[in-house]
């Protein structure tokens, strides 16, 4: 996922635009003769070139080996247009757009299982705790053979997901095979709202909290606040927080701002520059301290998988010297994408602006350079690539990670040993404040653009 902005806002906008356009289209017939001589205000070229496009379309419709669905051709064309732009711009079919909306909303209606296709078989990766699937007793590794009596043979993952999802309160029957079962077993499940959590917390025995943000979606800020409160309540004294943004690909811009705001009591968080240089957007922290979240010792972990929204948060915290950034150079994606819904339910994702850290650093390609560079564990020697890959896949299947254990079970010494970056974070918090942050001058960050009126 990438940094996106204003999904719903634009969606609302398009309805009005559509109505206007319908009226205008009617008026257009009368105006044809009057306007044919009028030049396009700025860029008339692509519209002048449209006849070339229609010529090509005509040839394909008439001459290509088989008759083609025009919708497929037009979708192909729009993909081609977007393909001439930067690599973060893309086109989404209505189906893909709906998927994205579900992803960024942070919840969906279903039964609460993650599924995958392995060797052509539909497998339950894991039931999500507290969901209908979990309560019914579905297990990781279960093979789904039928959905509502329909065989899953040759079914694509997308298709299966579609069949399993549905509105809250509706029902679905899954027939599964499991090792040890003599015959397939059917489960009747009532769908419910399934939250997707983007914030996961655990703690260390030494009064240090650990929070991992997996991506930036709706409610990430609220979940974060809740997690910080819970840690503060449990850990007395609270000696600091490790905010883990490693492998966090980003998400919503406003969420990045709000997450950064949790840690800052004032000042600029990020600003963007769009096509129109006058339309500079600046995002500030809400003034005033809250819950003490603005003052406890803070370490942020980043790596080359931290992108976009993660980089905004890390950049703001670094520029304000609010915390120490540890890890490896981040990904370097400093552009903002806006979702532009089109009239048939498909959508464009366009890069509409570039963003900059409070001190005016562009993230694009440069990334965030940690205050303290600590590499991850190197690949163990003597292990074959194949074995390594399978292990990685297994791990993913089991969703093994620091935060998959209950948050009340402290991170063990063993877990720390396997993660030198996390270990360094702990060391840093134990010896707070680090030299790099001592020179902190609280106040306006130098070099920030003057506040907008």
């Amino acid at each position, binding site marked *: 996922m990438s940094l996106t902005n204003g999904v719903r806002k634009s969606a609302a906008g398009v309805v009005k635009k559509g109505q*206007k356009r319908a009226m*205008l289209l009617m*008026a*257009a017939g009368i105006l044809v003769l009057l*306007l*044919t001589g*009028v030049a*396009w*205000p700025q*860029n*008339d*070229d*692509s*519209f002048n070139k*449209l*006849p*070339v*496009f*229609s*010529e*090509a*379309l*005509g*040839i*394909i419709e008439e*001459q*290509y*080996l*088989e008759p*083609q669905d*025009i*919708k497929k*051709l*037009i979708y*192909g*064309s*729009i*993909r*081609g*247009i*977007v*393909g*001439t*732009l*930067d*690599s973060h711009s893309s*086109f989404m079919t209505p189906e893909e757009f709906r998927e994205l909306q579900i992803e960024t909303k942070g919840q969906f209606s279903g039964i609460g299982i993650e599924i995958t296709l392995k060797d052509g078989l539909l497998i339950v990766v894991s039931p999500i705790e507290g969901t209908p699937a979990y309560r019914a007793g579905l297990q990781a590794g279960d093979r789904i053979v039928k959905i509502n009596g329909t065989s899953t043979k040759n079914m694509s993952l997308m298709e299966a997901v579609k069949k399993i999802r549905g509105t809250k309160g509706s029902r679905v029957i899954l027939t599964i095979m499991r090792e040890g079962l003599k015959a397939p077993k059917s489960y009747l499940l009532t769908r419910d709202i399934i939250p997707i959590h983007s914030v996961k917390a655990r703690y260390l025995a030494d009064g240090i909290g650990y929070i991992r943000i997996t991506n930036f979606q709706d409610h990430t800020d609220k979940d974060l606040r809740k997690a910080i409160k819970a840690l503060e309540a449990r850990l007395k004294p609270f000696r600091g927080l490790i905010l883990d943004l490693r492998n966090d690909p980003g998400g919503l811009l406003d969420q990045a701002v709000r997450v950064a705001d949790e840690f800052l009591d004032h000042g600029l968080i990020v600003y963007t520059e769009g*096509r129109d240089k006058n339309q500079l957007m600046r995002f500030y922290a809400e003034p005033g301290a809250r819950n003490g979240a603005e003052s406890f010792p803070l370490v942020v972990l980043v790596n080359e998988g931290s992108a976009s929204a993660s980089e905004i948060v890390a950049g703001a915290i670094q520029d304000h010297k609010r915390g120490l950034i540890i890890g490896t150079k981040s990904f370097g994606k400093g552009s903002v994408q806006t979702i532009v819904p*089109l*009239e048939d339910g*498909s959508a*464009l994702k*366009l*890069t*509409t*602006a570039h963003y900059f850290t409070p001190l005016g650093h562009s993230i694009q390609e440069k990334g965030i350079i940690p205050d303290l560079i600590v590499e991850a564990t190197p690949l163990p020697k003597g292990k*074959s*690539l*194949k074995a390594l*890959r399978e292990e990685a896949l297994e791990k993913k299947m089991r969703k093994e990670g620091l935060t998959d254990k209950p948050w009340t079970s402290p991170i063990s010494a063993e877990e720390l040993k396997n993660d030198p970056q996390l270990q360094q974070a702990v060391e840093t918090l134990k010896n707070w404040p680090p030299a790099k942050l001592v020179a902190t001058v609280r106040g306006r960050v130098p070099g920030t653009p003057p506040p907008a009126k």
Partner: protein
Amino acid sequence: MKLIPRRYLAVWICSVLLGSMLLAMGSWRAFYRSPAQAASSQTYAQLRLLMEALYEVENKYVGDEQDTSLIYGAIRGMVMSLDPTASFLTPSAYQEMLAGNQAPIGEMGVELTFKNKVLTVVAPLEGGPAWQAGIKAGDHILKINDEMVRNMTALEAAKHLQGPPGSTIKMQIIRNGMIKPQDVTITLEKLSPVTVNHYILEHDYGYLRLKHFNDQTAKELESAVKDLDKRRPPLKGLILDLRNTAGGSLDQAIAVASVFIGNSMVFYTKGRHQEQPQPRYGQKMPQALKDLPLVVLVDGGTARAAEILAGALKDQRHAVLLGFKTFGNGAVHKVFPLKDGSALIITVAQCYTPNGQIIQDKGLEPNIVGITNGYSENEEFEAELELKKPQEITNAQDLLKDPLITQALKLLGLEGSPDLAKSSSDPIAGTPPE
């Protein structure tokens, strides 16, 4: 303030242009098809969608993209949604194609396609720079000179892999099983014009290697066949190696097939506007080694002209195909120039073997599946993940290390009589189209 009227104007102009566009399409249709068929409302709605997308990009995208590139991008995207062999040529690319290759160009010797939208090597040319660098059939090319491969057709990608001889090109490739993409730098060369090698194996068997197809291949093959024919005592069998032989035109396939099958049918084509199959025949010429049992080695890198040749030899000369399923590229393309000087190359028909088997996408199944070498699966897997130069073939002894060639020899030796051909041909063949 200023923005609002402009927006209205934009919408007006959009609709006006849409109207004129549909008119243009209508007249185009009228030109090619007598009853002027009005663009359906579905077409109208879809074109409006395209205009909406164009409008949004023009107004919101952060960079300043060139406008013609948007429309050319649209046409390219449309063409690429058809099949991975279709192309769009900008006016300059089309001019270049019409003029032909002038300067001696350096190449790396790879045939390319798009597989699931990823640029993929169909086959490296044996002995060519890419082959020397360890590139294999099926390798995916992610970047060329640090630029991500996107929004280009296979033809355009091939252009990116050409340059002056001696210059280098850096590619990032990934192979199924690799954990991370690898960079490889390849020095371009003017490819050797020699396309055919031949050897005598085990004293009594002829081996012909056809590395790729060019206009000289048929002549080269003819003289190689004559050479083998002169051999005394006469040969007992022939192996034609078409593994990793990709590329070539349909005409080249016909010329080469003529050496083996004379003026028999090489293939036939069928298309949307061709009610009747159109057969293509070889040229009449003296037939050497005519009755010799023939084993043709094929694999996933056997594509295009080589596949057509393999199909013709199987159907018309009772050759045994040994190895693995071929690539499956038997499309017939046609160039359509557009009014502004650009052009489309799209598939208009497909090739079928004389016995009626389609080649496109399906490929040809071997009569006998090849055995792989004796590595354990794991060892082979690890070995395959390294980019290293394959073994060069300099004499007949080298060839005998190749498991498929030993298998072919066994097949020819076991049999030693023309029965091999008879037993293998009929059950597979379909009905000839006539």
